[in-house]
């Protein structure tokens, strides 16, 4: 009985979800996105199939998670690669349709004669009255002129001005902002009248008319704008680009710019070299420090090992954004505690943030501090797994500590360690948080045209191009991201191979 009840409950729930899904599809279709609606219908169909078909049973459990991964991880990654082949940037932000719509929305004061506008107060609201030179008048219903927001208001013929006194000029000036948003329509006409002077309204006509070939004719001066799908701009006959531009595919344009143009090639090579060096040295340093500490902590002759372990692990447990910012303060050249100590001991005040070499040293120091606890824990686990009899044999044969280390411990843990070290390399290759919070990529190269810093790694450089100083060039930044994707993919394949080799060796 209970079982059939719960079955019924699930059935009702499923039917309800299906209906809600259908309604959503209907809403999207009504909003005018037919393609999107079709896609949504497809998703709904697949979902229904997964949750009703016996053959798709395993997918009932996988579907929600896989869908989330596809939508929020895989799709953005692929979309980024796609953007890398476009000119998407702050100057070419809109789609072609939206940019065209922007031009078609432009208005100019047409040929009709302007009308004089006056306001008549009516119980805290105003009647807007307009009349032409001949004295013919029209008026609106009382309007509240305080809220902003575009409104279209119909005018009614008025034989004479409304009763009462005209509002003084200062009231008209005080309500300019609201008046500017008004579009007044004369009875029997389609032209919008808009404010054209302090107290004048004039008929506004669309500035551009669209021609069959997609070009736009300026109705005021007769010039023609043609869309150029290579540059993503409407251009005038003289070749001048008219903003706003629109998004177009430019093929390998971004990659050509990155790898061949003088302005980008130089910084890019320097940044790439530093990225690899930074990631590699970080892995080496964290491994060496972590390994030494792990060997010490696995030594049974040592007491208080539990206390040491927890204290040594602390740097990893504190949230990164906090400890990195703590270091940013401690390394401050003028007030930082590190320079105070160094000044007291040796009389030096290194400029950690303005000297490129010192800034890089600081990054490596901080990153080693952040990263060694993780390698330490990994090494401790692996050293523990080494059979103790190997060391006994070594002791019998007179092997010392150094022999144990180089002949037994290191060779045995290097193999399982390798995939993890590669993963650590890949992580630090993209260690955006550290660079962004500690140096922000500074100090900048002095000889570079585009803003690029001596401590920038590829991702932080990407971030700067996309979201900071160089005018939000999303396309170019996405092109660099694409290059990073490719590099990391190579690393991943190597890593997977190594992992498989290890797995089959066991």
């Amino acid at each position, binding site marked *: 009985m209970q079982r059939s009840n719960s079955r019924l409950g699930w059935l009702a729930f499923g039917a309800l979800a299906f209906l809600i899904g259908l309604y959503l599809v209907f809403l999207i279709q009504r909003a005018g996105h037919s393609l999107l609606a079709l896609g949504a219908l497809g998703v709904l169909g697949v979902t229904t199939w997964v949750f009703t078909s016996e053959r798709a049973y395993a997918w009932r459990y996988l579907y929600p998670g896989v869908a989330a991964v596809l939508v929020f991880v895989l799709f953005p990654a692929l979309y980024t690669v796609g953007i890398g082949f476009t000119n998407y940037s702050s100057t070419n932000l809109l789609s072609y349709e939206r940019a065209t719509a922007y031009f078609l929305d432009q208005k100019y004061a047409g040929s009709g004669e302007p009308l004089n506008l006056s306001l008549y107060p009516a119980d805290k609201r105003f009647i807007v009255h307009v009349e032409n030179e001949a004295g013919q008048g029209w008026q609106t219903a009382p309007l509240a002129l305080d809220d902003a927001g575009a409104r279209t208001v119909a005018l009614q013929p008025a034989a004479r001005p409304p009763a009462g006194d005209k509002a003084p000029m200062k009231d008209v000036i005080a309500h300019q902002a609201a008046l500017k948003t008004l579009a007044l329509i004369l009875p029997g006409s389609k032209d919008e009248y808009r404010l054209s002077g302090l107290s004048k309204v004039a008929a506004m006509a669309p500035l551009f008319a669209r021609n069959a070939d997609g070009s736009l004719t300026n109705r005021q001066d007769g010039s023609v704008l043609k869309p150029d799908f290579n540059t993503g701009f409407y251009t005038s006959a003289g070749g001048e680009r008219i903003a706003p531009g629109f998004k177009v595919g430019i093929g390998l344009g971004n990659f050509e710019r990155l790898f061949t143009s003088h302005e980008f090639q130089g910084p890019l090579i320097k940044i790439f070299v530093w990225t690899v060096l930074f990631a590699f040295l970080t892995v080496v340093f964290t491994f060496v420090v972590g390994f030494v500490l792990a060997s010490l902590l696995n030594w049974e002759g040592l007491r208080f090992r539990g206390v040491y372990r927890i204290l040594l692990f602390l740097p990893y447990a504190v949230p990164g954004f906090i400890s990195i910012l703590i270091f940013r303060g401690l390394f401050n050249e003028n007030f930082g505690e590190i320079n105070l100590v160094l000044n007291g001991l040796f009389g030096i005040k290194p400029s950690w943030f303005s000297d490129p070499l010192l800034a890089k040293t600081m990054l490596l120091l901080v990153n080693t501090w952040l990263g060694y606890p993780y390698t330490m824990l990994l090494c401790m686990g692996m050293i523990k797994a080494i059979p103790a009899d190997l060391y006994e044999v070594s002791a019998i044969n007179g092997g010392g500590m150094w022999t144990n280390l180089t002949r037994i411990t290191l060779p045995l843990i290097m193999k399982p360690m390798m995939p993890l070290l590669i993963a650590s390399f890949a992580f630090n290759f993209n260690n955006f948080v550290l660079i962004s919070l500690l140096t922000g990529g500074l100090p900048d190269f002095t000889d570079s045209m585009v803003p690029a810093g001596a401590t920038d790694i590829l991702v932080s450089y990407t971030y700067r191009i996309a979201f900071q100083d160089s005018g939000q060039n999303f396309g170019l930044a996405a092109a660099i991201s694409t290059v*990073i994707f490719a590099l990391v993919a190579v690393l991943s394949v190597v890593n997977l191979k190594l992992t498989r080799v290890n797995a089959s060796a066991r």
Partner: protein
Amino acid sequence: MAMVLDKTHRFKVIAAHAGLIFFLALTLFPFLMIVSISLRPGNFAAGSLIPEQISFEHWKLALGIGYTDASGQWVAPPFPVLRWLWNSIKIATISAAVILLLSTTCAYAFARLRFAGRRLGLNILFLMQMFPAVLSLIAIYAVFDAIGSYVPWLGIDSHGSLILAYAGGLALHIWTIKGYFDTIPVEIEEAARVDGATHFQAFRYVLLPMAVPILVVVFLLAFIGAIIEYPVASVLLHQEQNLTLAVGSKLFLYTQNYLWGDFAAAAILSGLPITVVFLLAQRYMISGLTAGGVKG
């Protein structure tokens, strides 16, 4: 293991202790310093590790109270730290709950059900952790910008967008939970199936109650992951009131407006609870990670 311990051995022990203590002094210096700085008056005060003069002004600001300084002027908190903490906790709790729900069912399928593409799926999940979200920032920004023009509460500068962006971070958690499911004998569920339970009932009423510890751990890990996430949050959130801790904390240390002491108090206030939660959860994370790395 009985061994004869000679003098060199004792010397080695002492040397090891000395080395470890020296290393610890270096590594823990920042933490001790930050506690000291949070208790010093003023934002530029230098001094020894133990402050000569203790002042709680920075702590008052961090807690959003404000105080009257020596010249009788009211000092208001520079940033809404508690508000940021609340934003962080809210976003992290909701996204962690979503992540837990999605990754548990996926892990069940990978651990117990047989279907085409199972091994491939696991490998893809394993590889995905090599590609951080920071590489897709531009698309994430563009997508949520587009969504925002139709659904404002999922657009740029909304918490909904951040929660959705975090909801896809399942890969590692699926591996962790699957690793735990693999250690639970499948015979118990089979017994339930023999007694007439459906697949779902075996999952819901037999397996899940046994897996509660790992579910708690994964929830905590996803929670911490969302709290400390910086790149995506920094792109999606803009208004000061909307920021999470990870994005907001940076504002304390701008060159033009350098609030070192205020930062110290806020850092301890927000960092301490997260650290404690992390220490509780981390043991399982490491074992999950390495297990995930070497098993097929």
